[in-house]
């Protein structure tokens, strides 16, 4: 049984059809890349899965539950997490507090008011920061980080709640080559406990990190399969050649 199954997803904005019966299936501990030309509907599909948009038609199942009508909060509590395309770390808070904010999301109100999970979560905060190579800047404001570091911080925040599925919308956007390489390294270890859906323009990055790919074109699924299968696919080569 797949972890995530989205079927027949359509999204219509007025006259514009962004998605037209798209589908996405992701298994346990699978890194799944979502690729396609600009305007093919990758981000929209991601948003429909994450709950940032409600699909016009279609059904999203997660861990055998129909979550199509779930709010983002309910999806998060079911084990899904999202890193936005635009970095949305909280700039005035310290890195430490950004992570703590993500970690304490499931604490009860009573615990929050009395700060009862503060000590218990401390080690987890530092572990996350260390894992994402940000520990030495724990007490700086997030606004002081470079763009690439902010992206890492945000991935760390998205992972803090130990999700079973992480949705990453353009994690390497605006990064240098070196930062992209490090991002790939940082993502590898999470495979043991988490599946990943990545929307990304950098095809080399996608090829290095992903197990399976889904290719979208004009709101429809053009092809879906292993990286090798997709690379050998004529249609896929064509749309990328057409663009080039």
């Amino acid at each position: 049984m797949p972890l995530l199954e989205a079927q027949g997803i359509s999204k219509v904005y007025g006259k514009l059809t962004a998605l037209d019966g798209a589908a996405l299936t992701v298994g346990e501990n699978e890194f799944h890349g979502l690729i396609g030309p600009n305007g093919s509907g990758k981000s929209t599909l991601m948003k429909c899965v994450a709950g940032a948009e409600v699909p016009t038609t279609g059904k999203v199942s997660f861990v055998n539950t129909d979550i199509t009508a779930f709010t983002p909060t309910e999806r998060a509590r079911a084990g899904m997490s999202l890193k936005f395309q635009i970095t949305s770390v909280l700039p005035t808070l310290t890195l430490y507090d950004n992570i703590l904010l993500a970690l304490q999301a499931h604490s009860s109100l009573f615990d929050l008011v009395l700060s009862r999970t503060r000590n218990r979560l401390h080690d987890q905060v530092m572990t996350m920061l260390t894992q994402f190579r940000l520990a030495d800047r724990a007490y700086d404001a997030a606004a002081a980080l470079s763009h690439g570091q902010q992206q890492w911080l945000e991935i760390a925040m998205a992972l803090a709640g130990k999700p079973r599925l992480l949705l990453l919308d353009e994690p390497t956007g605006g990064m240098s080559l070196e930062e992209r390489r490090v991002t790939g390294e940082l993502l590898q270890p999470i495979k043991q406990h988490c599946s990943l859906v990545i929307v990304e323009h950098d095809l080399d990055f996608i090829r290095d990190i992903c197990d399976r790919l889904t290719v979208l074109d004009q709101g429809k699924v053009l092809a879906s399969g292993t990286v090798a299968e997709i690379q050998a696919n004529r249609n896929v080569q064509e749309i990328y050649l057409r663009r080039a």
Partner: protein
Amino acid sequence: MGGAEQAVARIGEGPDVVMGEGAPAASAPAGRASAGWKVLPIVEGLVLLIALVLPWVLQDYLTVFATRVVILALFALSFDLVWGYAGIMSFGQALFFGAAGYGVALMARDLNVTSILLILPAGMLIGLTAALLLGGFLLLGRYPSSVIFVSLGTLTGSYAADRLARGWYYLGGQNGIPSIPPLTLGSYEFEEGPVYYYMVLGILVVVYLLCRFLVRSQFGLALAGLRENEQRIAFFGYKAQHLKAIIFAVGGTIAGLAGSLYAFHEGFVWPNMLGVVFSTQVVLYVLFGGSGTLIGAVIGTVIIEGVSFWLSDNYRDVWPIILGVLLLLVIMFRPLGLVSFVLGERERVGSFGKGPNKKGPNKAPKPKETGNAAP
């Protein structure tokens, strides 16, 4: 039209926009603060010190005025929690203040209840109930309500209550409810003057400390997330609407406490206490002093009320204009309020992690190591 929409959008973003503009200006003191000593406790201590000696240096009629200011500062705290900390546009905070004022005035008039032990809890309960009802309607829902909905809803609530009170004979109509008897404790009567002053100052200090505890707790961190990026924290799994309704109710409770103290201090209640006049006044207090800092709300109230008092005495005809210009200047050039002259951004926002580690992660483990080595 476009301009108006933009303005509304800017208001909607509230603290975010304000922070963005203020950040560069505020960064200098931030460096100073992080270098070792903290400014905030010094400011708080100074304000408390001044407040404590005030009745000794002021004439009696000024002590009465100062008492009114302390009660209004309590009211300002309630609004600051809701708006400055949680980012909820409550333009009808006077509804809770006034509803409690009217409620306790009726208790005194019709039921002869004047005991402080009944009046203050009743005022808080009225504020809490009103805030739960209005907040439940405006804030709770499956999806977050829009900023416009909340700001217009609170404003309308306050305006409607004002109109209702004006037209309702039982509540005294335009004149309100006059000659409320003094607040009592056993056979003792709280008259205007130093005793009433110290009583409300004591309450202000207690409420201030409770608020301070709350905004620095992990709940305070959740509030910071709420005001900076509500959508983001919903994706972490926070029930953002619940958080909002809770802080709105806390704000309503404090406003109710302030309203009941105000009613008994002034000796009468009138429809303005419920309406737009008081609702906007409290916005100005907090904006002027510095939203998102508790001490800013207090300082803003003291300065606006103090300056108004002095100007209305000495420049009777032009004082509203002078006051308006002063407010505009602060809002344009010091969007973070007067406290931002001394308070850096780091200290204003605060940090919520483990206490001892704030000065550097290396310091905490060291004592532990020596502790382990000793036995």
